[in-house]
């Protein structure tokens, strides 16, 4: 389980630091000052094992910053986050192994030249034995329908394939929770379907999945719960069928059938 208690994150005074894409590297080094921009404001949240949670909200609402506190990429200025009962900061490696993260742009995440090398990167960093690494790579690639593509070059992959390799890289850590930050951005329809199918299969297999998005159309049917942020605060925390009625007002796209009549 991931538990965030009273989490507040601030960034430096520059306006650009607020955006989701830039979040993560500009937290005040002194643990936070009273000044700066509040990206996440007093958020308390629990994500049970096996849940499919959607974190929704418009650009700059603090979604990415919030999920990055789950594995210690962003340290809260106030409050704390624990994963499986342990404070994230007490053991960053354990937290990062337990919470796999797929970034908004997979190109930022893929660090090797080939698919196999990249998927093996995380387990190698954990210092696992070679046979165990090979097993994890095999299974992670199978989970994203890329069996036998170990030697494929990363820069020759399509956007959808890169996204799937990024997911495989996170899965190879055998995380309890998989966090995907805007996983459908820039993907065409077949690629979106493919990634969605993979997420559905992973969730069915027992992995808890957190999807960050400003567009609920793809994931509404899969979600167990939707948490929507607005100005860094939790504005909605409800099952999808309840949440969708309130999300358009926050700037989140919802399936057509829920869209309010003009």
């Amino acid at each position, binding site marked *: 389980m991931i538990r965030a208690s009273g989490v507040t994150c601030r960034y430096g005074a520059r306006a650009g630091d607020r955006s989701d894409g830039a979040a*993560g*590297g500009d937290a005040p080094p002194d643990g936070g000052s009273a000044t700066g921009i509040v990206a996440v404001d007093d958020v308390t949240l629990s994500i049970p094992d096996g849940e499919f949670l959607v974190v929704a909200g418009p650009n700059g609402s603090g979604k990415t910053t919030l999920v990055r506190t789950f*594995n*210690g*990429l962003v340290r809260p200025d106030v409050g704390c986050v624990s994963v499986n009962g342990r404070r994230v900061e007490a053991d960053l*490696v354990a937290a*990062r*192994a337990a919470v796999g*993260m797929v*970034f908004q*742009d997979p*190109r*930022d*995440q*893929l*660090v*090797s*030249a*080939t698919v196999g*090398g990249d998927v*093996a*990167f*995380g*387990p*190698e*960093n*954990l*210092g*696992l*034995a*070679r046979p165990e*690494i090979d097993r994890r790579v095999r299974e992670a690639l199978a989970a994203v329908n890329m069996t036998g593509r170990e*030697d*494929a*070059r990363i*820069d020759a992959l399509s956007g959808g394939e890169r996204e799937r390799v990024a997911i495989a*890289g996170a899965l190879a*850590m055998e995380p309890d929770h998989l966090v995907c930050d805007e996983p459908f951005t820039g993907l065409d329809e077949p690629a979106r379907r493919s990634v969605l199918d993979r997420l559905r299969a992973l969730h069915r297999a027992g992995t808890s999945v957190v999807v960050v998005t400003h567009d609920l159309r793809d994931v509404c049917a899969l979600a167990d719960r939707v948490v929507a942020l607005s100005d860094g605060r939790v504005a909605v925390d409800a099952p999808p069928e309840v949440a969708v009625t309130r999300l358009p007002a926050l700037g989140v796209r919802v399936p057509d059938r829920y869209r309010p009549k003009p």
Partner: protein
Amino acid sequence: MTLSYVPDGSPAHRLDPRSKLAVQVGFAAAAYAYTTPRGLAALTVVAVVCLRLAGGGPRSLWAYRFALPFLVAAPVVAGATLGAPWFRVDRAVETSLASYRVLLVFVVAAAYVRSTPVRDSRAAIQRTVPGRAGAFLGVGVALVFRFLPLLRRDLATAREAVAARGGDALPVRDRMRLVAVAGINRAFGRADRLGTALSARCFAWNPTLPPLAFGRVDALALGFGVGLAVVALATVV
């Protein structure tokens, strides 16, 4: 064609990266020791064979095209004088040979890069150089090879973005400034994101390295590399 590993089943791909590093070092030493036309002609054959054994060809050298103008210009600059006789052929010839030597080293380097995954290079370095120095070097090599193609792509994108809005009509100096500023900004952003990605994936200085093993063919390659180095040393001693 990019400066990166290309999966293949060539003879060079089957070699241990440490053998290939030995050949590279030996070749570079020989290239600096034998700068006569005859010596460079022999080394040309060696360099071409190395590239062919890695499954590469002239296209593999495309990534080095940015260095070519400097290699071509160097003899001209070296030969030019401020007064009579205005151009000294002997100096130009000497520098031409040096430029050509650098080109040959590039050819062998291209063979290495084409046939060696970055993580294998990292493993080879960390196993050859012990301790923190090896770890630091290994990570450095891995990051440079990961980062350089992205940086080049960012610069190309910045150049296209400038051109797309009519910027190609600007003077060269202005275009260079625009592309450089955008490129540096992107490089810093890229470095930030890469750092975050490495953290998220539990980056470790001493990870489980890929298995490396010397085979029979490696004995040939190692012997050849050491032989080149010895021959080069013989000219100094």
